[in-house]
């Protein structure tokens, strides 16, 4: 969920095209272009084959272009006439001299410029003159990946006219801020015959009117679609997804799905997020039960619904999906320790387990630790009010391969817990203030000591019941202490030399200062300070467990580099 959020905030629209400089050879027959008139005709329905560009090619964008086009460079340095090099990575350009220069620029330069311009600039450039328009047109045609934000009030028909230009599109991401219906799907189906990945994101207030019938028809017709992600599926009514190519399916905003038929033998990743409304009537037990037959190769499964119950967990255990490695059953308060027991009895190779929002307790954590000591690398237990710091401590001690653990909103004051149920999705500023006030009246604090050799991310956001924290994690990269309002600055000990990001939103100034000191100053002279540490009131000394320093002592250089890398984010 968090990851998706991040990508939403990314650049509103970015085009990814292949690189590859212009060629000095004829695009049709391959002979050197200089002084050459080509007689080979090209089938207009079959333009130049798209080179195998991928996300990775974006990375080496600025590296020198592949060798192979330098061979005839000398020919390009002709002194007798104004020889312009025609780029033909898209498709051969007519030999008209007119089309070879566009105002002050040569065609090659213009191609280079427009290739890196965003979609908006490209639309603008298309209106400059004919040469620019033709160049922009070729750009659209060779585009394989398009990410577009559709502003509110704009007609979806105009998006359709843009998509029609992109006949070679393989991956499409649309962020739609107006209402949408099946005409959009029809547009995409019509314009992009080879589409492999479709991602439709909707803004909060936009209504997605696509029905289950329309979605199933779209999927059935798109024979090469492998990834489908649609947000805001409130009006689907039922799910009937049958595809032999689909491997990733993400649907969110689902509501009251009457029946489900996800018949995708190649499906590896399934994410179903239901809208958090109480009156949801989806029968998750039957749905999960059917996966054994319809999606036998499921590897990653994510279901977020308040309707998740112990029975759903039982039927999942019975489904026995042999390839399942990542399991996420979120928001189900009905998921209990007994559910954990049945899941762990069937699935013994899980790498990721997310039971956020469930009712499991420390004994559930114990079962998890017993079954997955060798495989589990990511564990998320946010909003599980029944677990305590000793459960978390046990998990970190028993799961040596753990890289990420999220314990947000777990160790909180009893007074706060009733509040958290209501604000599971987000906590507003006012709620936060309330919590702080209440917390002051119920001092019931816990301490947390974690020593772990592989842990990279630790999240303790909203652990208002946390009083003392001691971390010895040489690999720890990211630490989230947002709203750890009662963490005592003097009872904080960070021995994490590779920390890059520390989040401390909503922490007291003294605590932030303590974090800062621990990271930037104390670390350098750690041997002087440990194992004893004076409390803030100066009255007594507490013994702080001393771990053998994992940091090589002569590592002054690395330490400096690390210091400059670490960010403490407080707002």
């Amino acid at each position: 969920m968090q990851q998706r959020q991040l990508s939403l905030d990314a650049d509103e629209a970015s085009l990814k095209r292949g690189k590859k400089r212009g060629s000095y050879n004829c695009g049709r027959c391959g002979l050197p272009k200089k002084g050459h008139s080509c007689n080979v005709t090209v089938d207009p329905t079959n333009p130049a084959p798209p080179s195998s560009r991928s996300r990775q090619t974006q990375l080496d964008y600025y590296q020198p272009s592949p060798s192979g086009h330098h061979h005839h460079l000398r020919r390009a340095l002709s002194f007798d006439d104004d020889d312009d090099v025609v780029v033909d990575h898209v498709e051969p350009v007519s030999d008209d001299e007119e089309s070879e220069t566009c105002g002050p620029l040569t065609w090659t330069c213009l191609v280079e410029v427009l290739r890196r311009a965003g979609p908006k600039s490209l639309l603008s450039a298309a209106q400059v003159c004919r040469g620019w328009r033709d160049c922009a047109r070729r750009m659209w045609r060779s585009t394989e990946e398009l990410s577009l934000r559709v502003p509110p009030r704009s007609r979806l028909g105009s998006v359709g006219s843009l998509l029609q230009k992109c006949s070679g599109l393989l991956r499409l991401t649309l962020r739609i801020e107006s209402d949408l219906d099946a005409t959009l799907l029809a547009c995409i189906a019509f314009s992009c015959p080879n589409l492999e990945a479709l991602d439709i994101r909707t803004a909060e207030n936009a209504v997605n009117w696509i029905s289950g019938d329309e979605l199933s028809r779209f999927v059935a017709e798109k024979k090469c679609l492998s990834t489908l992600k649609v947000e805001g599926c409130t009006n689907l009514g039922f799910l009937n997804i049958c595809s032999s190519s689909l491997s990733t399916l993400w649907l969110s905003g689902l509501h009251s799905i009457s029946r489900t038929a996800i018949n995708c033998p190649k499906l590896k990743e399934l994410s179903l997020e239901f809208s958090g409304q109480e009156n949801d009537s989806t029968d998750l037990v039957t749905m999960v039960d059917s996966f054994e037959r319809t999606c036998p190769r499921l590897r990653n499964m994510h279901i977020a619904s308040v309707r998740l119950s112990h029975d759903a967990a039982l039927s999942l255990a019975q489904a026995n999906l042999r390839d399942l490695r990542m399991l996420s059953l979120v928001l189900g308060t009905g998921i209990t320790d007994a559910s954990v027991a049945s899941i762990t009895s069937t699935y013994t190779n899980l790498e990721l387990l997310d039971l956020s929002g469930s009712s499991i307790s420390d004994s559930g954590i114990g079962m998890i630790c017993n079954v997955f000591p060798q495989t589990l690398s990511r564990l998320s237990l946010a909003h599980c009010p029944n677990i305590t710091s000793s459960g978390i401590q046990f998990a970190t001690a028993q799961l040596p391969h753990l890289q990420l653990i999220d314990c947000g909103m777990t160790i909180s004051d009893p007074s706060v817990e009733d509040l958290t149920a209501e604000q599971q999705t987000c906590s507003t500023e006012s709620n936060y203030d309330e919590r702080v006030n209440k917390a002051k009246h119920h001092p019931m604090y816990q301490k947390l000591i974690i020593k772990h050799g592989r842990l990279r991310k630790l999240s303790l956001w909203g652990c208002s019941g946390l009083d003392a924290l001691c971390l010895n994690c040489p690999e720890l990269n990211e630490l989230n202490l947002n709203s750890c309002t009662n963490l005592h600055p003097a009872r904080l000990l960070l021995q994490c030399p590779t920390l890059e990001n520390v989040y401390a939103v909503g922490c007291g100034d003294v605590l932030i200062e303590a974090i800062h000191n621990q990271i930037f100053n104390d670390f350098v002279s750690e041997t002087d300070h440990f194992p004893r540490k004076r409390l803030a009131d100066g009255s007594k000394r507490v013994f702080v467990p001393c771990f053998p320093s994992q940091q090589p002592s002569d590592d002054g250089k690395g330490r400096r580099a690390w210091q400059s890398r670490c960010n403490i984010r407080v707002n």
Partner: protein
Amino acid sequence: MSESTEKKMVRLRSSDGEVFEVEESVAKVAKTLQDMLEEDCADAVIPITCVRAPILTKVIDYCKDQVMISSSSSTTNNPNERTEQERKAWGQKFMEGVDSSTLCELLVASNFLNIEGLLNLGVDKMVSMIQGKYPQEIRDMFNVVNDFTPEEEEEIRNQNAWAFERDPYYKKRSSSK
């Protein structure tokens, strides 16, 4: 002067007849010239027919800097990040104050001489200049003649109009930054 005799010099003639004498290592930054030199055309003056003298001066400035960077980075062992940052800053400075017509000529020249780095700098600059501009503004900037018929222009404008609607969301985001 004794040094210059040791180093091999190359002479380049711009389109308006001015002759520049540069070290071979500087000229070799341009891959087109490198290929030529390796094919033994070193004695003659190399005519660079499509590049005017002021542009060629700028190009040579760039090449000289590239040579300097590559020689200095081999002696001092800087971590890569730093040089990357410095290079970026230097590139911005180099492109600072370059007007649109010079930019176009620079692009053409760097493409012709096949200087990847300079081409990238120029393209980035031009992309940033185009960004957020209306077609007429782009035309004015780069002296492009509008050769559309009124009908064509109307049609293409209608097609693309939606992208140019002012949207408050985008405005708010960009202003808050």
